[in-house]
C-alpha cells in the first residue's frame, strides 16, 4: 500500500519535472505557431532554427566562451590550489573566504559589480569581458574541487621528489598532477557546465552584439512564443540526455 503511494508520488514529481519539456518537444514538430493545438508534423522549425543567424552565432559564442573560460579557470585555479595548500592558516582562511564570494553572492550582484568595473576601466563590453566574467565565477569551483586532492596527498611527496633531483616542473607533472587529476577534471567539468548555462552574469557583462544562447532565448522569449525556441529546447535536451548516458556508462565501466 505505502509502496504504491511512494511510487505514485515519485511518478507525480517526475511528471511535474518532465511535462513542460515534453510539451516543448512535442510542439517543436507542430505544423503551426500554436503551442496548444496539434496541426500536423513538420520539421520547419528546425530548419528555420538552423537558418537563424542570431541563434547560431550565440551558440558559437556560448561554446567558445565556455571552452576558453573553463580552460583558463582550470589552469589558474589548479595552480592556485597548489599555492593555497602551502599558505599559512590565516592566509588560507582569508583567501578561501574571498574565493567563496562569487559562489555565495547572487548572480545579479556579481553581474552588476563586474559591469561597473568594466565600464570604469572603459573596456569595451563584449567577448573579452564576458570571458573574464566567466573565468571569475568559474575559478572558485575549480579551487574547491582541486584543494581537497592536495589535502589527501601524502605530505612530503613534492619534497621527496625534489630531493631526488626532480625539477619543480617535472615533480609537478610526474608526481603531483596524477594525484590531483580527478579534482582537476571535476573542476573543469563544473566550470564548463556553469559557463554553458550562465545567463545573469553574461547579460550584464556583454555588449557589441556578442550574445550567448541564454541571452538569445531571453530576448526572443520577451517577444513572445517562438516555435524555433521549442526546436532549440528539443535539441539541447537530447544533447544533455546523450551526454548523461555516456558519462553514466563510463563511470560504470570504471567501477568494474
Amino acid at each position, binding site marked *: 500500500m505505502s509502496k504504491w503511494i511512494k511510487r505514485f508520488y515519485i511518478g507525480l514529481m517526475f511528471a511535474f519535472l518532465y511535462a513542460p519539456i515534453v510539451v516543448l518537444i512535442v510542439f517543436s514538430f507542430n505544423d503551426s505557431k500554436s503551442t*496548444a493545438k496539434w496541426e500536423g508534423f513538420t520539421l520547419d522549425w528546425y530548419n528555420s532554427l538552423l537558418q537563424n543567424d542570431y541563434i547560431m552565432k550565440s551558440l558559437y559564442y556560448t561554446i567558445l566562451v565556455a571552452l576558453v573560460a573553463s580552460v583558463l579557470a582550470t589552469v589558474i585555479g589548479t595552480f592556485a590550489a597548489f*599555492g593555497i595548500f602551502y599558505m599559512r592558516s590565516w592566509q588560507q582562511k582569508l583567501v578561501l573566504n574571498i574565493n567563496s564570494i562569487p559562489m555565495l553572492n547572487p548572480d*545579479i*550582484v556579481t553581474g552588476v559589480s563586474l559591469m*561597473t568595473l568594466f565600464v570604469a576601466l572603459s573596456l569595451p563590453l563584449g567577448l573579452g569581458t564576458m570571458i573574464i566574467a566567466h573565468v571569475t565565477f568559474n575559478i572558485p569551483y575549480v579551487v574547491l574541487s582541486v584543494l581537497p586532492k592536495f589535502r589527501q596527498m601524502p605530505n612530503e611527496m613534492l619534497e621527496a621528489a625534489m630531493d631526488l633531483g626532480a625539477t619543480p616542473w617535472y615533480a609537478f607533472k610526474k608526481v603531483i598532477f596524477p594525484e590531483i587529476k580527478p579534482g582537476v577534471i571535476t573542476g573543469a567539468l563544473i566550470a564548463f557546465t556553469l559557463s554553458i*548555462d550562465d545567463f545573469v552574469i553574461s547579460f550584464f557583462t556583454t555588449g557589441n552584439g556578442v550574445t550567448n544562447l541564454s541571452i538569445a*532565448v531571453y530576448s526572443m522569449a520577451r517577444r513572445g512564443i517562438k516555435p524555433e525556441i*521549442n526546436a532549440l*529546447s528539443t535539441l539541447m535536451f537530447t544533447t544533455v540526455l546523450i551526454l548523461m548516458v555516456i558519462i553514466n556508462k563510463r563511470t560504470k565501466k570504471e567501477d568494474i
Partner: protein
Amino acid sequence: MLKKLASGPYLIWIVLFIVVPILMVGFFSLVQEGPDGTLTFTTANFQRVFDPIYVGVWWRSIKIALEATLICLILGYPTAFILSKMKKRIQTFAVMLFIVPMWMNFLLRTYAWMTILGKNGILNQLLALVGLPQMTFLYSEGAVLLGMVYNFLPFMVLPIYTVLAKMDRNLIEAAEDLGGNRRIVFTKVILPLSLPGVISGVSMVFMPAVSTFVISNLLYGGQYMLIGNLIEQQFLTVGDWHFGSAIAIILMIIILITMAVMNRASGNDPEESGVNLW
C-alpha cells in the same frame, strides 16, 4: 618560492575581479553625482532603499522566495526520502532522471511555462476539453511562484537526498531495535540527521529565488517588481547606478548573513557548502 608563485595569477585575479568590483559598487552606493559631475558622499541612496515603496519590494521578494522555498521543501523532502530508500540499481537511475532537467538551460525551462500557461496554452486547452472556462494563468503571482518552484526544486531535493543516502543505516536499525516506532525513528533520528541537507537545500533555493529577475519578467510582464527587477531596472533602464548599487549592497549583505547563519546552524564546513550539489 614556487609555491608562492603558483597562486600569484589567481590572487591578482580575485583581487581585481572579485574584491575591486564589490568595493566599487560600495563606493557608488555612497556617492551621488551632481549636475556638473562632481561626486559627493551621501547616505541618501540607502535612505531611499528604506522608503516604504521599496520596503514593499523587499517584502514582496522575500515573501515569494520564502513561499517558493517552503513549497520546494514540502515537495522535495518526501521525494528525497523516497529516492534514498529505493533499491540501489533503480536509485542511481532515478536520481539521474532528477538531474537531467536541471541540466537544461534555465531560460528554456522558464520559457516552457510561458507556452503552457498562456491564454491559448495547453493548460487552457485542457480546461476547455473538460468544459471549464478559460483562465488567466500567465501574468500572475502564481505563475512566478510556479516558475520558481519548478526551476529550483532539484536544488532542494539533491542536498537532502545526499545526506539521507549517506546516513548510517545502523543508527536507524538501532533505533528500531530499541523499540522506536516508525514515526519516532523518523522524528528523533532521521529528521535531525538530515537537517544539514535541509538547510543547504533551503539556502540553495532561497538565494536564487530572492534575487531573480528573469522568472518575474517572463512570467509576469513588466509590472511585477522584485528586488532583482529593481536592480536590473536601475542599472539598465533608469541608469541610476548609485541607487542600484545601494540595493545590490544590501541584497549582498542579507544573503551573506543568511548563508553564514545557515552554515553555522548546519555545522557545514563553509568550504564545502558550495560544492554540495556536485
